[in-house]
């Protein structure tokens, strides 16, 4: 119990300190761009009303979820194919490096041409940025599979699907998870960016609307909300990670004990 309390204290110590600094540093600020934190927190509840949460925040989060899931599917799929074969890897590498270096915000106008301005475009923007860390980490994970286990699978003539599920993906999963974690934070950024152009609802759209309407406290409250969403999503991600990698964490703990 005390250890849980201590962990909570450690978790909140820095955020609370920083908020306190922000609070006192901005108190009495007359700069219209930097309203006092007190004012930002004051407008927070009325700004993020139930209507806004269901009409703007929820659609954004759904697009993020769909985009992230799409990136996982495509990224892991492509990563396994590329990682399994040296020839494919050599072929794909230059293209991967080229595509990876293109910033997704620069692609927004092109996606608008191809996919219109609705949900499809926004999801494509999210996928186009999220997919790269997943692909590259999956490739590395698949490449780094234990050669002895790989040989063993082959010797026992283990079926392709079973081998893929129980060996290839399993042994690559720590790296896939690392890639997915990077992709998640990219996804949050792109969720906002995809709504800053040609949108009619969403969290990024709302923040932009506050900006052009010179409602700076409301705009900052949106930025705060984004940060909070980031914290919650990373906590959720940690829960999922502990599920997926339970064998891996167990293995590492066992290795530490035996050493």
């Amino acid at each position, binding site marked *: 119990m005390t250890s849980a309390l201590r962990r909570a204290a450690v978790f909140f110590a820095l955020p609370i300190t920083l908020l306190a600094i922000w609070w006192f540093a901005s108190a009495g600020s007359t700069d219209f761009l930097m309203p006092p934190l007190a004012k930002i927190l004051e407008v927070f509840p009325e700004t993020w009303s139930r209507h806004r949460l269901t009409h703007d925040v929820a659609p954004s989060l759904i697009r993020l979820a769909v985009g992230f899931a799409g990136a996982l599917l495509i990224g892991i799929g492509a990563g396994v194919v590329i990682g399994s074969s040296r020839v494919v890897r050599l072929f794909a590498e230059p293209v991967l490096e080229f595509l990876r270096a293109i910033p997704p915000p620069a692609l927004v106008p092109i996606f608008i041409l191809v996919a219109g301005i609705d949900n499809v475009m926004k999801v494509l923007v999210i996928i186009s940025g999220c997919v790269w860390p997943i692909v590259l980490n999956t490739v590395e994970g698949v490449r780094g599979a234990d050669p002895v286990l790989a040989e063993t699978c082959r010797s026992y003539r283990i079926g392709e699907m079973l081998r893929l599920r129980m060996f290839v993906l399993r042994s690559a999963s720590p790296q896939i998870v690392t890639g997915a974690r990077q992709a998640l934070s990219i996804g949050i950024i792109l969720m906002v960016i995809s709504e800053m152009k040609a949108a009619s609802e969403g969290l990024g759209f709302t923040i932009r609307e506050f900006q052009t309407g*010179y409602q700076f406290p409301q705009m900052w409250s949106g930025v705060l909300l984004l940060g909070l969403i980031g914290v919650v999503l990373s906590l959720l991600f940690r829960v999922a990670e502990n599920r997926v990698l339970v064998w891996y964490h167990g293995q590492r703990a066992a290795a530490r004990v035996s050493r």
Partner: protein
Amino acid sequence: MIRRFTAVLAGAAMLLSAAACGAKETPPSTPGTPDKVTAGVVAIVDVAPIYLGKQKGFFTEQNIDLTLQTAQGGAAVVPAVAAGTYQFGFSNSISVLVAHTNGVPIKAIASGNGTTGNATADFSGLVVKDPAITSPKALVGKKVATNTLKNIVDTSIKELVKRDGGDPAAVSLVELAFPDMVGALDTNKVDAIFVVEPFLSAAKAKGWKVIGSFAALDPAMCVALYVTSQALAQSNPDLVARFTTAMKKSLAYAESHPDEVRAILGSYTQIAENVRQGMTLPKWPADINRASLDKLADLIVANGLTSKKPDVAAVVS
């Protein structure tokens, strides 16, 4: 936690940079040397007078060395003027009134441009492609493109729908840059667009129908204003007065020399020669039309852009 930390850190960084910006002041004028000023404008037809005035030497006459810098939209110019990045700037009247009401320290010092007085031949237009849409009311439930949210275009679209008996809240407004609008309507990504010249000419050339305009709301609408920061107006009222004098002369000159306006447009826009010759020019009244601003202030409150009515007298005084 990391992300939260980054967010706050970014906030702190912005605080510092904003403080640094706020500290930027224009040095007081020294007799004999011209005042170097920068004005933030949007590269559209509306600002032709300031380009023309600069070329004709109206600003040099007033001992002002003027540099023009183009920004994406008028909504972005206003904070830059307030922070001292630009000494003067051009923005649409609604953005100016809303900014002032929300505490952005700016004031209007000259008229920008106005409507033509003819609702069916304005330099602006709400354009539809679908022949089934015959009036703004039919845009309820449809997607309409505005160049910026919560500015004069956005507000005019809502007001046109409202006056026609439709529910403006049921119109889905999409932010698109003016140059992208004709293409977006052509490919049916939106159902209507609100454009100004020269894009209006391009839209009309496609055979599309104009179902509204700024002029339909107010034949003598004051569409835009030139602004400065309250800090500069206080620290160097002489410079501001000289700028206003030069601006008024430029506006009057542009109003009476449309051919020179059409010619100078080629210097700061990509508008083709034949389009420049054919398009409708706005009016450039030399003085700020307060009656029109009062009407816009009413629209601002009616459309919920601000909770209290903008104080027009305080903005233009």
